[in-house]
């Protein structure tokens, strides 16, 4: 069971005076899959990355687990980050490490550096990693180097790494954009499975509207740095999509 994520008046401007996010106000329930859709360059990634502070927000609050994630720093920021799993579009695995080492990266927030340097991870972590590899369909891949994997396999490792953190919130930044349609569905099934089995909120940025409709409990439509749609997948009409993406030729 996890907490809700509450975002209040969140703004981000990379260049002063040209905000990418305008006063975002949204509450993400303590469970379930939320998909964020919208055109490229509309601030979806920025929004996701503000939550775990890979991007510094300009103003606003991000409340989670009794803390304002927009304000924490140092050890408090690290402790916040280790509760938040993140899955990346280009997987961002450490290419020259093995699959097992990549999974154990998810435990680095909990294991002392001098132990991590010597690869002295608790046996429970190793056991969990092996079980997780089984879950994501990569049993027997533990000692394979990450750069020897295919895209779909890499993203499975990426998800397993995030789950290793035993996160209370999961973020995914376009996790399927580099994958073929069949693998995309499998990856979305895995992410939705994590949301169900761990009972945590999963926040996913995506381009594929059909996939979002199929897997999300709730859809946020963004356009021009603002949330212009917020509702269940059934409520996402063609006219709404027109408003989010502009134009209509692509719809047919």
């Amino acid at each position, binding site marked *: 069971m996890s907490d809700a994520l509450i975002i209040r008046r969140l703004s981000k401007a990379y260049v002063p005076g040209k905000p990418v996010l305008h006063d975002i106000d949204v509450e993400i329930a303590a469970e379930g899959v939320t998909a964020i859709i919208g055109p490229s360059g509309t601030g979806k990634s920025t929004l996701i990355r503000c939550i775990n502070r*890979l991007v510094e927000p300009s103003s606003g609050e991000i409340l989670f687990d009794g803390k304002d994630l927009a304000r924490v720093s140092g050890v408090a920021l690290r402790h916040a980050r*280790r509760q938040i*799993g*993140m899955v990346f579009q280009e997987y961002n695995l*450490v290419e020259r490490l093995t699959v097992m080492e990549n999974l154990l990266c998810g435990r680095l927030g909990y294991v002392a550096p001098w132990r991590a*340097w010597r690869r002295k991870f608790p046996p429970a972590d190793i056991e969990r990693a092996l079980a997780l590899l089984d879950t994501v369909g990569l049993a027997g891949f533990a000692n394979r180097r990450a750069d020897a994997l295919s895209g*779909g396999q890499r993203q499975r490792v990426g998800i397993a790494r995030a789950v290793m953190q035993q996160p209370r919130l999961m973020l995914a930044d376009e996790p399927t954009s580099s994958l073929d349609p069949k693998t995309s569905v499998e990856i979305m099934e895995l992410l939705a499975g994590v949301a169900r089995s761990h009972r945590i909120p999963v926040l996913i940025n995506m381009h594929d509207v059909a996939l979002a409709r199929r897997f999300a409990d709730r859809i946020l439509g963004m356009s021009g740095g603002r949330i212009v749609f917020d509702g269940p997948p059934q409520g996402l009409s063609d006219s709404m999509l027109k408003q989010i993406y502009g134009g209509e030729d692509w719809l047919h």
Partner: protein
Amino acid sequence: MSAEGTPAIAAYRFPASRAAQITFALLAVYVVYALTQLDVSLERVQQGMAHAGRFLGRMIPPNFARSELLWSGLAESLQIAVLASALGIVLALPFGLLGARNLMPAWVSWPARLVVVLARSFHPVVVAILFVKAVGFGALAGILALTVASIGFIGKLFTEAIEEVSIKEVEAVRATGAPFTSVLAFGVLPQVFSRFIGFATYQLDSNLRNSTMVGIVGAGGIGGTLFAAFQRFDYDFVSAILISIIALIMAGEVLATAVRRIFIDNATLRQLFRGGTPVHRPLDDD
């Protein structure tokens, strides 16, 4: 339709860089000017060849009679090179890391870079002269001089390697809440490790060569023996020393290759001695 027949294609010119043309012209002018200034002539080269012939004649056959002196000098050079490389690499690692602008704030990276630049400013022989004045004649001065040179050289290469890592991988490790040193161990080091090994073996090679030279200014090693032999016109002993140095450098090359194969190609000791092919990780398609 022929290419020459089309007016647009005939009119097309590849853009020529005026700046590059001017630079080459200036360079050519300077080369001619320098030649006239330095009294360089073909006659002098021809005369020199005759001297060189006599000199080479006296070098043959090489005289290995003073082998004890030769061995002790070579051993000292080897020790200087290995100690200076080890010390230099250990010290270059922190400076290389601190100088990396993608991981460190400017107020940390600039001082670190300054140290590395200063260490690289002078030729090892110049630094050796300074250390001979400071700590006296002998191997210690040589070790210190080559340590400084190593910091200057691989410190810079380490910094560049770290600055070229994929920040995506680092970002992912950081996003797990890992402390900075663990980010280094899992996000940065795996990306730069094989290059570090390459730089380190290259530096050992360079230090081996330089360690045969710092002796000329009294900083220990075979260089002192070589210089003395030159001054006493013992050219047969000079050639013995030169042959030994070549052997030393070649042995160093073999050692460096072995180190690279162990760390970069994951070769086992058996493969190393039997000369088997390096292990390449299996690439599999799904």
